[in-house]
Each structure stands twice: as C-alpha cells, then as structure tokens.
C-alpha cells in the first residue's frame, strides 16, 4: 500500500491526496477499515473529477471531498456520510443503500439512480434522470432537475426546490415527488395529487433531514405521483407508451 495519507493536524482527519495516491488506493483503504476503527473522518484532496471515488463504502464514517468528482462518486454507499465540495459527475450516489451524500455544487445525470435508501442532497441543480428508477432513497435538490427525473421511480421521495424538466415521473411506480417551482411536463402515468397534511408532514421530514426546514414554505410545493393506470398492461393504454 503506497497510499499517501497525512494526518490533518487541525481536525484529526485522515487526508488522502489524489494527486499522489490513486482512487484504488483510497477505496482499498476505506474498504479495509475495521468496524471499530477510530479513523472515522477522512478528507480527500485534489479529486480532479476522478471516477468511483469512495464507491462501495460500507462504514460509519465521514468523508469530505475537496473538489469536483467524476462518475459514480460514493456509488452503492452504505452508512457513509460523504460531502463533496464541488460538482459531481454522472450517477453520484447510484444505488446507495443508506447514509448521506451532500453535493455542494451541481450534479450531472442520473444522480441517485436506483438507490434504495439514504439521503442525497444537492445544493445546486441536478441534470436529467435525477432519481431514475429510485427504490427508496430520499433526494433533495435545492436547484432544478432535468428531464425524465424519477423515471420509473419505485419508492422514496424526490424533493425539488426549483423547477423540473420534461417528463417528470414518467412510468412512475410508488416514488413521491414534490416540486416547488414549475414542471415543464409530466411523463406517462404521472399526475399531480392533492397535498394533504400527511404529505406536508412527510415533506417537512425530508426538508428537516436536509437541514433546510423553515427556509422554504411547504405550502409552495406541489405533489406528484403515479396514476397507477399502467400497472397492468392493457391494449387501451398503448398510446401512453
């Protein structure tokens, strides 16, 4: 192992500099952490858009990445808390099982794709297919999301403080969508639904988890979900596809 790890003096974090260490070395070190390890705070410098940083994390630790990351950052994360001080490439937090990912910049396509759990917060905008095929994750986007977001979303919540692009929630299953701004268009079988008290409470819970409860007016959000008309294949619905 030639991992270049420096003990950060001020905050006790382990510092991994990706200008001198490889992503493989970083991930191998993270995967090798013992359950009782006291190395619970890691900092990653000079990520420079590299792919698969902190992918496959399965540890109750904090990682702060200082700069932009490439594809699949923290992919399949379990338990880890990952903060990205920059933009994230395609598929940030894809298939996350649990834990927390905070993108302090913008996120590219397929953010949180197929993820089963945990919380993904994106301070900026997310591109197309945000939350595609989501299976239980909660995603809070403070900016806007692109087209086909929550496509075939099965479970979990997508909260968008800005606007949503075309075909929001296309072929949606049971994922719950909340959008504060405008929606360019709804996808097949996605409809606006009444925002009842239980939905407001649910939204408040998600905003609280993202640390922004009270910063936005819950009354400004609209709720979208599945009309469930495509749950059983029928020839009369062919024009919907």
């Amino acid at each position: 192992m030639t991992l270049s790890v420096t003990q950060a003096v001020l905050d006790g974090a382990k510092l991994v500099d990706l200008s001198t260490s490889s992503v493989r070395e970083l991930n191998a070190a993270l995967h090798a952490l013992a359950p009782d390890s006291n190395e619970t705070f890691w900092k990653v410098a000079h990520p420079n858009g590299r792919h698969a940083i902190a992918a496959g994390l399965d540890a109750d630790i904090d990682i702060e990445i200082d700069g932009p990351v490439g594809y699949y950052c923290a992919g399949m994360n379990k338990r880890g808390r990952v903060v990205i001080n920059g933009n994230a490439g395609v598929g940030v937090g894809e298939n996350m099982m649990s834990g927390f990912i905070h993108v302090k910049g913008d996120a590219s396509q397929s953010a949180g794709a197929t993820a089963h759990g945990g919380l993904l917060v994106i301070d900026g905008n997310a591109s197309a297919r945000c939350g595609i095929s989501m299976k239980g994750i909660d995603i809070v986007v403070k900016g806007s999301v692109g087209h086909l977001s929550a496509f075939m979303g099965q479970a979990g919540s997508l909260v968008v403080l800005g606007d949503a692009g075309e075909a929001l929630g296309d072929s949606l299953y049971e994922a719950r969508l909340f959008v504060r701004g405008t929606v360019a268009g709804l996808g097949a079988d996605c409809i606006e639904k009444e925002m009842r008290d239980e939905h407001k409470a649910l939204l408040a819970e998600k905003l609280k988890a993202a640390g922004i409860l009270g910063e936005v007016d819950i009354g400004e959000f609209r709720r979208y979900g599945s009309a469930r008309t495509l749950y059983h294949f029928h020839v009369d619905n062919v024009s919907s596809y």
Partner: protein
Amino acid sequence: MNDLTNTPRTKPRASATFDEYTLSEIRRAAATGIYDIRGAGAKRKLPHFDDLLFLGASMSRYPLEGYREKCSTEVVLGTRFARKPIELKIPITIAGMSFGSLSANAKEALGRGASAMGTSTTTGDGGMTNEERGHSTQLVYQYLPSRYGMNPDDLKRADAIEVVVGQGAKPGGGGMLLGQKITERVAGMRTLPVGIDQRSACRHPDWTGPDDLEIKIEELREITDWEKPIYVKVGAARPYYDTALAVKSGADVVVVDGMQGGTAATQEIFIEHVGIPTLAAVRQAVKALQDLGMHRKVQLIVSGGIRNGADVAKALALGADAVAIGTAALVALGDNDPHWQGEYEKLGTTAGAYDDWHEGRDPAGITTQDPELMKRLDPVAAGRRLANYLAVLTLECQTIARACGKSHVHNLEPEDLVALTIEAAAMANVPLAGTNWIPGSNGNF
C-alpha cells in the same frame, strides 16, 4: 350445361405464406388487439450447429483413445483483470434466469446440478436469493438495467458479475413480468407493489454507450476490490462490434447470446425477427477478439440453442471458451415433460411446445410462483437430472474432441469443421463439405 358434380376438383391447397400458425395468430390478434407474448427463444428453422460436421481424424490426424487418453475440459474465466478468476471443470455454464420468472425450487435445482458438475449458475432480473447463493458453489450475479434487488452485499458475495446489455431473444428489448408472478416475495425483492405487471427496463439508468460502460465497470471493480471477473452479455446483433466494444470497455468475459436463446416473456414478433442466429454470431465475436489480439485473453461464452455435446464442441471449435445453456437446462429439470401432457392440453398446448412461461401456470412447477405447482419440482431430483445432462454434454464433447485428436476441448478449431449448407459455410467461415469453398470469405465477414 356442364355437370359440375362429376368434374374433378383440386385438393384444398393451404398457403405456404399464410400457414396454419400464421392464420391462428391473425385470428388471435384480431380477437385481442394485443401482441402475443411468450417465453423461450426463436422457434423458426434457422441455420444452426446442425449444419456443421466434424471431420474427425484420418491419415493426417491422430485421434486419442476413448475412455483412456485424457481430454481436458476445464476453463478459467476472468483472467484479464480479476484477482479471482472463475475456474470451471466443464465448459458449460448455466445462463441467467431470474428468481421470479423461475420458482425457488427451480433455482435451487439449477444450483445443485451445476455445482455437482463444477460449473456456475447465473442470477437474473430480480436479485439474488439465499437459496440460490447457498446451492451454487459458483454464482454469477447479473447487473441489469432494472437493478431490481441490486445491492453491494450481494455484489461482494457473487463469484462474478455479468453486466447485461442485451439477450439473444430480444436485443434492444426490456421485459415484462406479469402480475401473476409478482408474489409478495418477488415484489419485496424488487421494491414493487404485489401483483402489478413489472417492467424491466431496456437501457441502463446511469450509463449509455461503451465509454460510459468502461467507467461503470471501473466502479464495479472498485466496489469489489477488483476481485470479481466482469462479464458483458450482449444479444447477437452486431457481434463483431459489440464484442470489440465490450473488450474496449474492460470486460473480462464477453457473452454472446444468439436468437435461439430463451426469455421468460417477450413478444413473439420480437423473438422471431430481431437478432441473428447463434451460428452467425460466433465467428464474428471470435474475429473481433482475434483482431484485437485478445482471443483467449478475454474469454467468450456463447449461448442460444445449445442442446448436445456436438453443439458444445462446435461452439468451442469456432473459438468460444465456453457455452451457456438455459432452455436445455430447464428441459433437463422437467420443463415440457410429457408426464404433464394432460395438463398441457388443458392449457391449450402440448408437451414440447408449452411456452407461456410468463403466465405462471407451468405444470412442471418451474416457470411459476404458484406454491402448489412449485411443489411438483423436487429440487434434489431435478438437480440430479441437470447434473446427468451436463455430464452427457461433456462426455459427448470429449468424444468428438478425441476423435479430432485433441487433448483439451479448447484445442478444437475451425479446421476440424465443414458445413452442410452454403449459408452455414458463410456464417461459420468453414468450407462447404467436400469442397474448399468458404462462401464470401476472403477472411472478412
């Protein structure tokens, strides 16, 4: 006035174009307004391995003694990048078939049979079950567009990962598991409501094209610490380019599935009219590997219509490293067995032709989630049948290899083959029998 009663009449003449099956399909479509969905692969007559023959040893070739001289069959998959390649005792694997489309007993039987013969099984859409993992000594975990049940723990406990781009029955198509088969357990594994028709996506949600796939494979390797062999499976359509791009994307193993390869549920029109036959795909895939200098470095698995040891031997002779079987494995378990003829007739079909696997009413208890039907399949006995069948395939393949003078089945080569038809000669790039003519060859495809 002519006496028409005594005029000779022609016999009723059925149309070759509008044959009985076609007429029945037109009537069915007119009655329902919906296309026909069924399981299995292409049923039409296609150029296939039957159109090839081995030459065997003669004056210029020295055969090996049957039952005495060794003819090895082991194959190692994933030697390019994986830290832990898969080592199989026979060059025959079990293709991906999901729990959901198949019963838990059927999955268990596949695991038992394959493990007894030292080979691998493969999960399918819907995730990995504990029974399947427990009964399969070597298990390939499919990474599919739907990602149903996908999780890092199962990824890490798999022995290999197969990124599914497509399958031979429906290159470019997704899937639909009908609500009858979405039981509480199946639905739970897929995070979907019980009883709804469940769509399997045709495209991956977070990558598009070979450049992205390369990064996706890098991620999967990172998650699994570069231990697992990573396969890329494609439906046979453009096998030369698809194989080359899979290699470029970093695959350890390429799986090419011809149009005879089965499916749990797809439109009949899709199965029969999209993709190319297995025979036409093998040499193109091998040529791509050879052109890249990667033949035998990236392994090739071929599937779609493998039935006997001759098919296995022919696929290997054309350059494959191993084959995969799906439909034949189900038949070995007991699918379409005449024992259930009475029940097949009640379903409007007959043993040997039953393919409504998506409806979940399989009398043999294999393509069903019905608890009562499932009980009909004894996983131990069915696993034994599969092991026997795999043993026969292997013995048959060895018999042919020895006759061709090969001490390992991988030493079979195109030079051992000739074709019975011009079409097969062109597709397989071997001479028409009795000639030295390879139609359309010049080394190009």
